């Protein structure tokens, strides 16, 4: 028997002896739900989520500062206290800042707020690569911003929030606590096990670092990693060989160092290089975005210089909303579509009619609150969300109506028939025809298209309605 045939049969026979447990799906669904519930990124939530960070290798991640959004003034208030925590030296493995078991006694009680702190980057320190443009980097910050902008959230690192540190096995417990816009904690604090740079769900405790001002922190590099493969990284302690750290310097567009730190990388992350342009807008205020398109480097450098660009503040005082007016007021309803199931078509027309009437409450009444998704940030007030969107000029109701005039698709692959608008939502972006792109043009601009090109899929506004006519979602984002 030829070697390849022998190998093929061997693998097949081995696989025949392996079957998943009967409850695998239930366990998996529970784990995914749990993971999502506790990992909502801060910029997508109406609340602040601070993460008391970790020990061992996981605590190579330093999280500093505090943040608030939706209310920029609050951010300025809470993140101005300098912290004497020294910056890690380049080329060294950063050490945990608060990871000993003896800190357990001072761990914050669930619900207790720990005063946020901030780190002021040392002045005059030039790190390897500081001020030097990254090879292949766009020539200007504006160009870079079009290439890729990633918001980096900041999390606080209260002393004592890390317990049960096992530096050998690189395990630690960390505490998660949500804090509302009023600065008060809400919900239950969660203690999360972190292991060796990964949490128990296998999610990397990505690298992180910095802040610069009293307004925003730089954090969350989880998609950035130099191309080149794990072998290019220095092993980190007893961590896996494919884990490692890399020194990172952030500079402003003028070349001034605003922060230094390190990023960790490991496992699949090294193969998860950012694929292309991505722009995420800060929902509530000014901040820094790190422009990090590291693809194409070819090798993994030992240090990176990345440009951080300040994001302009959102409109401070959007005008009050005229209840009789909205962006959909002058629109025509969509033409009836006899090819849709009656229940679906009825819902489609009802949505459009309520939007054209600028009737937010009527729109909300069309939803099933337990099923409907209008924002990935959660919350239970779609009418308020849409009203605020209109007040801020996002023309959410116009999108709501116009999207229903675009083509639809049916997805019944998961056993539940879902009708979605626009049709392109269900397609790979490369399969979207010119005609379909043209149909989107009145609603979206070149920047949007650039994002979808990079993302390889449409993630603008879309409706989902099930076969019974239940309005399941009107949401944007990826």
């Amino acid at each position, binding site marked *: 028997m030829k070697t390849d045939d022998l190998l093929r049969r061997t693998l097949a026979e081995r696989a025949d002896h392996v079957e998943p447990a009967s409850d695998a799906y239930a366990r998996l669904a529970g784990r995914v739900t749990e993971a999502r519930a506790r990992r909502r990124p801060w910029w997508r939530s109406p609340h602040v989520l601070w993460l008391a960070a970790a020990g061992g290798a996981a605590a190579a991640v330093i999280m500093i500062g505090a943040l608030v959004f939706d209310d920029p003034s609050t951010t300025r208030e809470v993140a101005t206290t300098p912290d004497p925590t020294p910056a890690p030296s380049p080329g060294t493995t950063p050490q945990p800042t608060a990871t000993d078991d003896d800190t357990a006694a001072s761990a914050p009680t669930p619900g207790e707020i720990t005063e946020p702190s901030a780190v002021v980057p040392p002045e005059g320190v030039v790190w390897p690569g500081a001020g030097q443009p990254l090879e292949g980097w766009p020539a200007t910050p504006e160009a870079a911003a079009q290439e890729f902008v990633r918001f980096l959230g900041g999390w606080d690192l209260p002393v004592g929030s890390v317990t049960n540190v096992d530096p050998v096995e690189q395990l630690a417990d960390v505490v998660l606590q949500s804090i509302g816009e009023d600065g008060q904690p809400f919900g239950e604090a969660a203690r999360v096990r972190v292991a060796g740079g990964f949490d128990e769900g296998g999610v990397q405790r990505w690298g992180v670092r910095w802040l610069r001002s009293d307004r925003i922190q730089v954090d969350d590099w989880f998609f950035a990693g130099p191309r080149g493969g794990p072998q290019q990284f220095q092993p980190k302690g007893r961590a896996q060989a494919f884990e490692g750290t890399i020194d990172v310097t952030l500079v402003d567009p003028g070349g001034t160092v605003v922060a230094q730190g390190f990023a960790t990388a490991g496992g699949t992350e090294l193969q998860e290089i950012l*694929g292309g342009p991505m722009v995420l807008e800060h929902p509530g205020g000014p901040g820094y975005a790190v422009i990090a398109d590291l693809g194409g480097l070819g090798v993994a450098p030992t240090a990176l210089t990345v440009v951080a660009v300040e994001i302009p503040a959102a409109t401070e005082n959007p005008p009050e909303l005229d209840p009789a007016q909205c962006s959909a007021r002058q629109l025509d309803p969509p033409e009836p579509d006899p090819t849709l199931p009656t229940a679906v078509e009825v819902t489609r027309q009802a949505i459009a009619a309520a939007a054209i009437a600028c009737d937010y409450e009527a729109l909300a009444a069309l939803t099933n609150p337990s099923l409907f998704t209008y924002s990935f940030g959660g919350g239970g007030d779609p009418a308020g969300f849409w009203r605020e*969107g209109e007040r801020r000029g996002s023309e959410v109701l116009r999108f709501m109506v116009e999207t229903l005039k675009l083509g639809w698709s049916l997805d019944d692959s998961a056993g539940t028939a879902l009708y979605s608008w626009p049709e392109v939502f269900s397609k790979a972006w490369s399969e979207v025809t010119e005609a379909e792109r043209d149909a989107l043009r009145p609603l979206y601009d070149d920047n949007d298209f650039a994002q979808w090109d990079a993302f390889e899929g449409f993630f603008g506004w879309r409706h989902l309605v099930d076969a019974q006519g239940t309005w399941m979602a009107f949401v944007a984002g990826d």
Partner: protein
Amino acid sequence: MLHAGRVADSEVAPVDLGAQLRTLYDQHYRSLVKLASFYVDDVWSCEEVVQDAFVSLLGGRRSVAPGREAAYLRSAVLNGARSALRRRRVRRAHQPEPSAPAPSPEPAALDRVVRDQVLAVLRSLPQRQTDVLVLRYYLDLSEAEIAETLGMAPGTVKSHAHRGLRRLAELLEDLR
């Protein structure tokens, strides 16, 4: 244009998530558990690795381009499987007994000794060669798909496959 009131977000809507999870589970879960079994001996650990990969993909912390989910899962499973034996994992309270081995449906099954030898030799190959061979000869992936999964150039895949298969033949010959 994306306006301030619009949420640019990488989380998946609950309705999408459920459907996506179900679809990905139905299409890939079983084969990924079997894939992990080439690296990890017990079925429970294999499932842990695969579940970790799913949670990593769908847990809300990352955004994987549509169409790339399978490659991501395969990659995560390969990395996770290799890590599983070296890293102490946090055990969950719920640990069902591993599934009982099912009899091989193939009447003319390979001699178990031969099969174990092949697997042992396969595991002794350089990591990437093992990965390439498993992906190619178990999952029947194309070179392009393997390249996407492992983050390497298609030419490198071909090279690893050629070298791996040749080395496998040499080592098996030595055993005879």
